[in-house]
């Protein structure tokens, strides 16, 4: 490993630089991904995206970083068409909530072209999108909607919990010949951690044990990995040994890793930032019961957001989001 520490945002920026350097077909498009910087010969500097994640890229690749109008249906639809015909676009959907304004090109086009065309199309598209709560951004800028994209056959969905995975997963996403939704959880975006130098990929469908334990398995991904680790730390102080599995990739899903940790501990708590119905937590719980039943010593527990929109007030938002306290309470219910 390396001592070099970067934020997730910086790791993503580095991955984009590498992807664009190594493949001339990679283009970046989205609202303000340059951000004013395209004013040629001007003293005006660029913002590099609303959160500054893509800063510097338009200077390095002026022809391949495209500021778009505020036209998500157009952006994502165009990216799908470009992907199907020879480019390898990375489209930015500023916040995942805006999925509502561009679902068709993902749901009915990107996800299905290859299948409908009898295997004759490929859509090497990456959609980067900021997901999740934690910034008091309220109901329309805080949702975790990866359960929607995960549920659509033909799309892949990945979600990093740390900078090293963010970089490697993004490079894999861009080089994958399928449409990939790359989620950037808000509370993870500025978390810093070691990031290897150079070009490397983190393969899809490979979960990672981020803490070993023997009494209970906490299954988490994205923003909830930190929550699960906090809970594990406190559980350890009380004599309960929790293992924490970071899924990293929701589709494909590492079923083997889930069933392995389940077999080891006999108890599973799934921690998911999204709403509870039809979600990843329910999906993983079903897998545990369906295929891991013989190893289960306790019921399978889910810690999720409640079935309601994301509230604005900080006290309500804090109560909305899964917390270490709620994970510990769920573990307590097992015994």
């Amino acid at each position: 490993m390396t001592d070099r520490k970067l934020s997730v945002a910086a790791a993503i920026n580095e991955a984009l630089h590498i992807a664009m350097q190594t493949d001339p077909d990679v283009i970046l498009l989205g609202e303000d991904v340059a951000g004013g910087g395209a004013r040629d010969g001007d003293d005006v500097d660029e913002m590099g995206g609303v959160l500054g994640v893509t800063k510097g890229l338009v200077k390095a690749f002026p022809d391949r970083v495209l500021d778009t109008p505020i036209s998500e249906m157009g952006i994502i639809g165009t990216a799908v068409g470009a992907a199907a015909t020879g480019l390898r676009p990375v489209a930015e959907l500023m916040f995942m909530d805006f999925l509502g304004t561009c679902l068709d090109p993902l749901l009915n086009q990107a996800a299905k072209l290859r299948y409908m065309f009898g295997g004759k199309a490929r859509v090497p598209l990456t959609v980067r999108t900021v997901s999740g709560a934690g910034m008091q951004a309220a109901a329309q800028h805080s949702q975790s909607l990866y359960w929607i994209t995960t549920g659509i056959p033909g799309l892949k969905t990945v979600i990093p919990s740390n900078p090293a995975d963010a970089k490697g997963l993004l490079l894999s996403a861009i080089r994958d010949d399928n449409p990939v939704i790359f989620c950037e959880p808000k509370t993870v975006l500025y978390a810093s951690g070691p990031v290897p130098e150079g070009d490397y990929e983190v393969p899809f469908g490979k979960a990672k044990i981020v803490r070993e334990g023997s009494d209970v398995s906490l299954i988490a991904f994205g923003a909830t990995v930190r929550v699960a680790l906090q809970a594990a730390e406190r559980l350890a102080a009380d004599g309960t040994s929790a293992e924490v599995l970071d899924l990293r990739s929701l589709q494909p899903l590492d079923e083997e890793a889930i069933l392995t940790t389940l077999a080891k501990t006999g108890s599973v708590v799934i921690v998911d930032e999204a709403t509870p119905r039809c979600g990843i937590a329910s999906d993983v719980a079903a897998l545990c019961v369906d295929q891991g039943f013989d190893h289960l010593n306790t019921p399978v527990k889910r810690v999720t957001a409640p079935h309601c929109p994301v509230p604005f007030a900080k006290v309500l938002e804090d109560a909305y989001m899964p917390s270490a306290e709620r994970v510990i309470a769920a573990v307590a219910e097992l015994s």
Partner: protein
Amino acid sequence: MELKPDDLRLAYRHMRMIRLFEEKLSDLVQAGKLGGFLHLYAGEEAVAVGVCSQLQETDVVTSTHRGHGHCIAKGVEVPGMMAELFGRATGTCKGKGGSMHIADMDKGMLGANGIVGAGIPLATGAALTAKLKRTGNVAVAFFGDGASNQGQFHESLNMAANWQLPVVYVVENNGFGEFTPTEFVVPVRDIAERARSYAMRSEIADGMDFFDVAEKASKAIAAARAGEGPTLLECKTYRFMGHFVGDPLPYRHKEEAEDWIQNRDPLQGFERTVAERGLLSAGELRVIDGDVERELAAAVAAAEEAPLPSIDELLTDVYVETA
């Protein structure tokens, strides 16, 4: 259009309140007292106030992420708005909505909106209600130049023109969508031109001039009320502050911003015009300034003292509860 002295006093009061409200919010965010995403309306006061000065309370407006000005202009109470921004139980939306979702159905304010362009079809729907239920109401959609690149804009205008709905589309062209200059992403010179695709009336107003906006809005609203269908009203304006609080503004020219701020301030323009026409005295305006300042200070103090929402509120209002 007739503007009585009382109308002018109210208009000035609203414009001053918007300006001070936004300046206060900027301070409060920088002092770490407010969270969330805040987009401020300072500089664009003449648009919201010019248009709303011509509306009735039962008329409906839809707004944007930059919604505080539209709320104040439509008569939403400032103490409730301030409490909402503080995330308090006494807020206009019980602290559940925040800046991007302030709404007050009782005042015909169908919401700020976090989704760019989403208010446009909502106003179109409000106009459909007005038409089919013959309420005589008019709907107004406020939105930015950036939003006019959304499909929701084009689909709505087409429908409203086909159905001749009583709606006014007010595009606030402030020259930027976030950090991208409008001319980079809008190929027509004036957004008003887009009305022609829908055989719709259009008009361009000086969005820094309350009187020009009010005059042109008044005509469009009267036409809508008379059953003569929709208008696209483009107001040329400028935002004096960043896209959001904390925006370092590297992407726009300082001289350009200075010019608008120094020479085109809608409040100063209003003051000049009322003096020239002998409509209101400077003394009267200063009294209003003082009133507004006190009202705002009281709203902040009350919001800071107000109770937080109870955790039970998390699960209320998700559905209409049927007894």
